[in-house]
């Protein structure tokens, strides 16, 4: 199609990101994911405006109430409005997911890039270290780190980030290795480009796409880990509203007041679903070769 345009002289502005965006727009699933994600981000940003009640407002005359017009998703054991707590909870989940992924990508990406670009002994040493880290299942790693460091938002972010680092190091390393093999890297050496220019102008722009995909899917994983940690009492502590810790508190009332257990879980599910859909869509959009 584009060839035809070039042929007939019609100048249609195209670029890699523009094309990818067009492909993404055609993907209904990805658009649904993006829409849900934007909605969640809005919830998190404007929780104060959107939530019908403050998240910690206790009302002992209305405890354990099922969904009603007053409390759309019902109330909990302290009579707090579950909807409001879920809306505020989006803040924590998105914050934890985002910051732990950014940390993991920066550290893991750097290690992977060094490993892939320089190769040899550095690569060997780093990759063996990553192998060792990866031989402890991620969830187990996060749990033991969280247990050692104690509960709290920052500790949870660090625990999740550390558990995720080896994965990113591998992804970045393998894409750097693929790009390093391309002839255009040799061509850049040929015209006298310095190492830093090659890394900045040629390698990084080309491995950003797979990193974005990994980050989107990884953020889903990080939010899952965060809620699991909080569920086990190792993450966010009450009364701060967090979906996992809400479920942890609701567990003992499952026999009689199941609504307390359902809605926070649905919130987690929607978030993860949105990120997964968007991630899958991005993968197809950013790597057109995969899709035939």
């Amino acid at each position, binding site marked *: *199609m584009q*060839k*035809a345009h070039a*042929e007939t002289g019609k100048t249609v502005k195209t670029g890699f990101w523009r094309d990818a965006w067009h492909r993404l727009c055609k993907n209904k699933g990805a658009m649904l994911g993006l829409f849900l994600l934007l909605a969640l981000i809005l919830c998190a940003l404007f929780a104060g405006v959107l939530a019908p009640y403050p998240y910690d407002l206790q009302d002992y005359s209305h405890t354990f109430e099922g969904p009603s017009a007053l409390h759309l998703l019902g109330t909990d054991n302290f009579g707090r409005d579950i909807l409001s707590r879920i809306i505020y909870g989006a803040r924590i989940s998105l914050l934890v997911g985002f910051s732990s992924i950014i940390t993991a990508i920066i550290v893991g990406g750097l290690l992977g890039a060094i490993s892939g670009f320089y190769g040899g002994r550095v690569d060997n040493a780093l990759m063996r270290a990553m192998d060792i880290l990866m031989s402890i299942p991620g969830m187990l790693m996060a749990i033991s780190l969280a247990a050692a460091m104690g509960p709290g938002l920052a500790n949870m972010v660090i625990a999740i980030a550390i558990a995720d680092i080896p994965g990113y190091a591998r992804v970045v390393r393998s894409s750097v290795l693929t790009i390093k093999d391309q002839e255009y890297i040799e061509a850049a050496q040929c015209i006298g480009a310095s190492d830093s220019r090659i890394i900045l102008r040629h390698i990084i722009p080309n491995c950003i796409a797979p990193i974005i995909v990994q980050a989107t899917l990884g953020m889903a994983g990080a939010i899952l880990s965060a809620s699991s940690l909080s569920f086990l009492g190792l993450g966010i502590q009450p009364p701060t509203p967090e979906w996992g810790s809400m479920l942890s508190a609701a567990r003992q009332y499952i026999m009689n007041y199941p609504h307390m257990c359902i809605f926070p879980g649905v919130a987690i599910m929607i978030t993860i679903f949105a990120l997964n859909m968007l991630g899958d869509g991005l993968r197809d959009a950013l790597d057109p070769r995969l899709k035939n």
Partner: protein
Amino acid sequence: MENILEIKDLTIQYRADNRIVEAVNQLNLTLGKGESLGLVGETGAGKTTTALGIMGLIPDPPGIVTGGEIIFEGEDLLKQNKKRMRSIRGKKISMIFQDPMTSLNPVMTVGSQIAESIRIHERCSKAEAATKATEMLELVGIPGERYGEYPHQFSGGMKQRVVIAIALSCNPELLLADEPTTALDVTIQAQVLDLIVKLKKEKQTSMILITHDLGIVAEVCDKVAIMYAGEIVEYGSLEQIYNHTCHPYTKGLFGSIPDLDSHVKRLSPIPGLMPDPADLPAGCSFCPRCTCACERCESENPQMIEVETGHFVKCFQIGKEEEHV
């Protein structure tokens, strides 16, 4: 001579994202028994699609055969059911694929891949099939002991020999060879071509050799069909095409290859590029690149004309010249 294969008005399209690509466009072709036909064209001309069409292996989606007939030994292959097609594939018509690196199953021994083909079409025990597969291996110049080895233990040329052994294991009537030597080095190519020609003679197989290399065609084929943008633009015997070239595209192809014997300082290439197959010109598809195109070429698609016995050309200019003469 009796015709083993007759293709009439074959049209194959690929459909994706509201785009219709005419890969093969009203193609007509006949092949006599025992003949070798060279199907020549550049990337995207629709050569492989034609071969896959004959095999009934067009990937669907996105490919669809939208019209025409493929008559093989009196029956129209496009009208046969799946079961009948399976009994023809590998038995009566078989195919050698372009890339020997990827066309063998990496987790099966080469011997069992040959034996599989024998077991499908011939009533025989496993042991008999294995014996026959070993014979086939030796026939293509690979020691029988290597029966139990895996494809990755073979070099490219050796793998292509295995592919040939698979294709010829059931003595097919028609062999479709799709660029069988393009991926190989010159000296290995010579070995493999020699093998194909030798076996073809021994087994009296008819063959369609798909290639972009006019040199290979000159050495192997009796008939030549030149393909451009999904159509046959010139068809005739080897002698007719090479010594009485008519179509401007064929002339352009010959002008593009450096000659080993004479000394030409400059080549005379065809200007421009292959048209986008999703957006073919209204008239003759070669018209935008043609040096002798006229107004009629732009608007009207020329028909095949027989310029001499058995030599067909799809070009208005040829008819004109004849008239002038």
